[in-house]
């Protein structure tokens, strides 16, 4: 397995280097997507399938498609990152030396950590001890939605902030008129949607006892939604009359999270301190609302601006 690890590490370095150093924005985006996929494989090798899923869906898929669209919107003259006669920059050797140096230091630190006893490092024991009181059966879900729930709350707030920033840039760009030229795309989007819904429910259900949960579920549903949105199957999001509904739905996950945090403050005296008897119900409610909000936020990224004008 060492060979695979080394190959993965080299692939990550190579795609990252090509993304940064090669000329052309399109090439940079393609390499970034490849880098996302390699990172997802690395997460799988590190036994973190839920992170891998989120990385593949968000890092490679959704971000990549967003960046590709952005490159497509640029005038042709601006798509080149570097001039025609491109050379490797002069600071490349300096950068390479610094990277190797920092990498070597990290390696030494890791070996040191292994010698001093990795088994005692981390908080795995404390988490395992608190698991029965957290309301979730799986450690990752317990950490994300109860023990460190505030982190997840802030992550969702950051995503909502990203939606606000995108909406502040320009009016929404309506989906491209396909005009019957690409019949396969619309059909595929419709045929696959039941499967996206099924996978969404599966991840949500699985989140209570195995890797999964709100973020992968939201990412899968969001990806399916983006497919429908770009084929022009979701008209209501662009209409003025639905604008308020859309805003409330987008904020629903964060609002429910905040209500839970405040309820915890009232009941136990500490922010987001869920009483063990109710924690399970709170976690399910938050998980469903957060997943739906995440899916909707990922979709509204693809409006490329503020709808309803």
């Amino acid at each position, binding site marked *: 397995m060492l060979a695979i690890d080394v190959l993965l590490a080299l692939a990550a370095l190579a795609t990252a280097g090509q993304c940064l150093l090669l000329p052309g924005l399109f090439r940079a985006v393609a390499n970034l997507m490849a880098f996302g996929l390699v990172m997802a494989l690395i997460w799988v090798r590190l036994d973190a399938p839920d992170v891998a899923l989120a990385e593949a869906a968000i890092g490679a898929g959704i971000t990549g498609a967003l960046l590709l669209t952005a490159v497509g919107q640029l005038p042709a003259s601006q798509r080149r990152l570097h001039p025609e006669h491109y050379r490797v920059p002069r600071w490349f050797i300096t950068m390479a030396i610094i990277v190797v140096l920092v990498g070597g230091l990290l390696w030494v630190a890791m070996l040191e950590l292994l010698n001093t006893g990795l088994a005692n490092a981390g908080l795995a024991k404390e988490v395992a001890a608190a698991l029965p009181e957290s309301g979730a059966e799986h450690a990752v879900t317990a950490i994300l939605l109860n023990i460190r729930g505030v982190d997840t709350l802030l992550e969702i707030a950051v995503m909502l902030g990203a939606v606000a920033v995108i909406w502040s840039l320009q009016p929404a760009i309506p989906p491209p008129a396909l005009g019957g*030229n690409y019949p396969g*795309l619309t059909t595929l989007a419709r045929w696959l949607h039941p499967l996206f819904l099924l996978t969404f429910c599966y991840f949500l259900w699985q989140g209570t006892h195995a890797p999964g949960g709100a973020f992968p579920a939201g990412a899968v549903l969001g990806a399916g939604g983006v497919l429908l949105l770009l084929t022009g199957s979701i008209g209501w999001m662009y209409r003025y009359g639905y604008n308020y509904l859309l805003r409330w739905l987008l904020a629903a996950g964060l609002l429910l999270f905040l209500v839970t945090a405040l309820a915890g403050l009232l009941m136990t005296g500490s922010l987001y301190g869920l009483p063990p008897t109710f924690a399970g119900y709170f976690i399910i409610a938050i998980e469903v609302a957060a997943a739906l909000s995440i899916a909707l936020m990922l979709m509204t990224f693809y409006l490329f601006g503020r709808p309803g004008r």
Partner: protein
Amino acid sequence: MSDLLGTALILLGLPFFIASTVGLLRFPDVYARLHALTKADNVGLGLICLGLAVQADSLAVGLKIVLIWGLILLASSTGATLISTSALRHGHPPQQRNDVDKHAGH
């Protein structure tokens, strides 16, 4: 027995991947490259998925692996028609037999 069959299927699938990669690198235009990718890759992936499904612990896991193959078949064939339709509409005519191949080796 299932291990042996699985390994044989996976080994059988690898040449298809290599062939399609060579095609992607060496074929002259978008359409020929797509042809190499969608045909050979899907056969190779199918053989590898079958090889993994044969070695799976339970029937459910095996069926999931085969389902992955089915989904990729749907997605890659649709993606290939999208790319080729786009290329044709944006003025990249398919290469003709007597055109000069710019990428050919000397």
